[in-house]
């Protein structure tokens, strides 16, 4: 399967729009500059295209295989995994003290878009392995760090996070897996976890599970959960591998997509021989797990963006090749030749909407990653400010990007007509593989509740006021531009809608019911406004760059035909021109849904409570 990504847009967002160059001036990033960062991106795309995309179809068609407790992955996954580990890509962001590369989060996000877009099933193992390495590095004892971190971040050992049990899905507090302390300080673990991504496979000699379990007499609910490091194979004090740690995979799920990622049921301690090691303190399991989950939530949102970007590039190429029907300009002429479907207005709309949502997602994800970098780099109040932005935007990254990611894959499949529904083209796999992002790492419903109940009121509502305040400033700047004036006013109207609804909703006697019922559309409204704000901001920058090219080349825009001809032959100018058109399209098409959703919520309609189900 081929993988294409709009690397030009990624580089525009990173190097022209975001202050990446300034970020790299920090002492922490002394080893990196724009030149070698660009090499990192280029090499990552090359690996994504040549190695990961090359086994994406194997992952889907052969998939993970379970046989008598042992899970195997396609041979081609092993080759790709070797390339990734040899290159040090799992430790991309990690502390150099543990063999990591110490790159900024924004670069990690860009690289992981390529990896997720070319093969999300494969990349899940990388994401979880990275997460486990960072968790033990952050919260482990010196001994735990010594034994695990370097090997995990090098990808020699893989990692997983184990939360879900049959009766404890979104309700994690209902977990029953038990942990009883041994005399030597380790814990005896017994229990069963389900839906464990990468729970077993043959890519690595060992797998390090981070498992939520309950100690005896612990309080009920999430407060009683502790987090344990449980290796698949016991690790000796010298770091060598010992005997099996009594972790058994007794099943993998048959799923709609991501067939190359084994979703495992893991039985811990069926022979009373499973030992775990407490990470952090007893009762702090959920608190710690949230560190991993928050990072994973941004990653899952990135999966939506990555699927959208890959699907859009593929559909765009297809639309240029596929001949069907006559040009709309020759509608009355049955003798007119067939034209590439990219000339049909409906196809163009779907393609531009796909592009617009993809770039809005990319902007939200990169902006959030930039805030995360600033949080890490700064100290005190400033650092806390950026942290609050990340916390506010995390559920938007996860839910908004996964939701619209699926929608974009749907549009892109639709561009293909009947062929899109067949397995001859990758469109259907992109769509099947993207759906899971709406579900795992906390369903999008859970994300929306987190957003409205925790994140909006956080710090007295300061973070949301500041983010929407930035959107207001974008409106103020864009409204004086004749081309962007109307889209800018649409942004203003959507902002007003959000302001009105937040005032009205809290005053209602049924406020709690209304918020619980409408959390997902509320999250979508804010996500759409933030997306429009960032795209408009980018469009203003693109206009300046385009103007400079036009001036240099002595090209006017009055003669539409000549201008279009110039754009066709000048890739850079066309890129900036398209950035502007993309932002305009997004404002006109997406922002009105904010008012529509707002109207539905403000109506006070509560039929789902009254319908008999």
């Amino acid at each position, binding site marked *: 399967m081929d993988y294409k990504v709009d690397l030009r847009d990624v580089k525009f967002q990173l190097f022209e729009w975001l202050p990446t160059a300034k970020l790299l001036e920090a002492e922490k990033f002394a*080893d*990196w*500059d724009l*030149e*070698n960062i660009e*090499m*990192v991106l280029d*090499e990552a795309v*090359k*690996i994504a295209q040549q190695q990961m995309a090359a086994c994406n179809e194997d992952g889907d068609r052969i998939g993970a295989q379970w046989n008598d407790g042992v899970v195997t992955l396609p041979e081609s996954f092993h080759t790709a995994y070797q*390339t990734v580990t*040899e*290159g*040090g*890509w799992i*430790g*991309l962001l990690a502390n150099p003290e543990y063999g990591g*590369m110490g*790159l900024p989060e924004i670069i990690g996000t860009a690289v992981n878009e390529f990896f997720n877009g070319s093969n999300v099933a494969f990349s899940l193992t990388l994401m979880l392995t990275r997460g486990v390495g960072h968790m033990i590095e952050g919260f482990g004892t010196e001994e735990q760090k010594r034994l695990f971190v370097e090997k995990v971040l090098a990808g020699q050992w893989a990692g997983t996070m184990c939360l879900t049990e049959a009766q404890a899905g979104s309700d994690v507090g209902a977990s029953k897996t038990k942990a009883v302390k041994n005399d030597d300080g380790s814990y005896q673990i017994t229990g069963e976890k389900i839906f464990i991504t990468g729970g077993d496979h043959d890519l690595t000699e060992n797998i390090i599970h981070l498992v939520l379990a309950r100690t005896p007499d612990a309080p009920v609910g999430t407060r009683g959960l502790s987090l344990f490091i449980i290796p698949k194979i016991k690790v000796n004090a010298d770091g060598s591998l010992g005997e099996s740690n009594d972790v058994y995979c007794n099943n993998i799920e048959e799923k709609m997509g991501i067939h190359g990622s084994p979703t495992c049921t893991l039985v811990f301690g069926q022979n009373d021989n499973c030992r775990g090691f407490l990470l952090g303190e007893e009762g702090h399991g959920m608190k710690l797990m949230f560190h991993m989950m928050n990072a994973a939530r941004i990653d899952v949102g990135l999966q939506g963006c990555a699927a959208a970007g890959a699907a859009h590039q593929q559909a765009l190429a297809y639309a240029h090749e596929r001949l069907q029907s006559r040009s709309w300009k020759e509608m009355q002429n049955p003798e007119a030749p067939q034209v590439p479907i990219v000339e049909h207005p409906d196809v163009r709309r779907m393609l531009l909407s796909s592009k617009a949502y993809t770039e809005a997602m990319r902007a939200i994800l990169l902006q959030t990653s930039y805030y995360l970098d600033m949080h890490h780099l700064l100290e005190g109040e400033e650092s806390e400010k950026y942290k609050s932005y990340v916390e506010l935007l995390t559920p938007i990254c996860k839910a908004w990007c996964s939701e619209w990611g699926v929608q974009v894959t749907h549009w892109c499949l639709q561009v293909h007509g009947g062929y899109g529904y067949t397995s001859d083209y990758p469109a259907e796999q992109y769509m099947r593989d993207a759906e899971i992002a709406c579900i795992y790492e906390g369903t999008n419903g859970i994300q929306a509740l987190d957003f409205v109940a925790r994140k909006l009121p956080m710090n007295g509502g300061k973070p949301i006021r500041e983010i929407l305040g930035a959107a207001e400033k974008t409106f103020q700047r864009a409204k004086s531009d004749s081309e962007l004036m109307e889209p800018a006013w649409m942004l203003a109207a959507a902002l007003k809608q959000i302001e009105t609804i937040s005032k009205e909703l809290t005053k209602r006697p049924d406020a709690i019911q209304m918020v619980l019922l409408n959390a997902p559309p509320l999250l979508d409204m804010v996500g759409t406004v933030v997306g429009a704000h960032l795209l408009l901001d980018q469009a203003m920058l693109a206009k300046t760059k385009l103007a400079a090219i036009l001036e240099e080349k002595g090209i006017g825009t009055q003669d539409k035909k000549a201008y279009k001809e110039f754009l066709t*032959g*000048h*890739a*850079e100018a066309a890129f900036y021109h398209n950035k502007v058109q993309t932002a305009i399209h997004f404002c006109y098409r997406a922002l009105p849904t904010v008012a529509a959703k707002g109207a539905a919520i403000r109506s006070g309609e509560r039929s789902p409570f009254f319908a008999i189900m």
Partner: protein
Amino acid sequence: MNCIVCVTSVPDTASVIKIGTDGKNIDETGIKWIVSPFDEYALEEALQITEAKGGEVTAVTYGPARAEAALRDCLARGAHKAVHVIGGEATLGDSFTIAKVLAKVLAGREYDCVLCGNKGVGTDCSQVGPMLGELLGIPHVANVTKLDVGDGSFTAGREVEGGLEQVESSLPALLTCQKGLNEPRYAALKGIMAAKRKPVDKIEVASLGIDEAADSFYTVRSLELPPPKSGGTIIQGEDNPAAAAAQLVKALRDEAKAI
């Protein structure tokens, strides 16, 4: 065992090539320059040789300022140092001039193997390597797909029609590398990071005492793109295959002039 790898930077093979306004060069706007893919085999082989036997890999290129990116790429993959001869447009340049420049730079350096790609993608001349071997006065073997380097000697294999030819000779020697010799590695992140600090020795071509314009074997008079593909012709032949075949032969002879 020290190896010198000669590389050239060429437009990314996925680039859309346009002719420049002078009609003799390509329009470089928006072109991404990469190490010529055949040179990647040469670099990989050099890295493998020095990893097994010790020594250093020096990457050498001759080209304008932008060619330094190719050297950084080689350094990221593991080359120890690099030499950049800053000079004219080597991508479409005369093979003999390039060979002369490289010979001058290599003279006086210590090396056991000089490795080149068997050709530069784009011009596909396959001349620089053998010319350089002659100018250096060392044995050279072209189109190598198999290589064993010993102490003071080597055995190289290359595909000839119907078989594999084995060549033995002494070191130092020059070899041009062909697809099949090895699988070029990706740059590791550590390598990319380290490349920034590795030395690139910059030499102006004029300081070598070579006049780039003199004694060239060829000059580019003009460049043009291949004609755009026209639509195919379908000859309907279900009813009368013999007539269709005759029509096809006529078209091949008269229109396509293929037979």
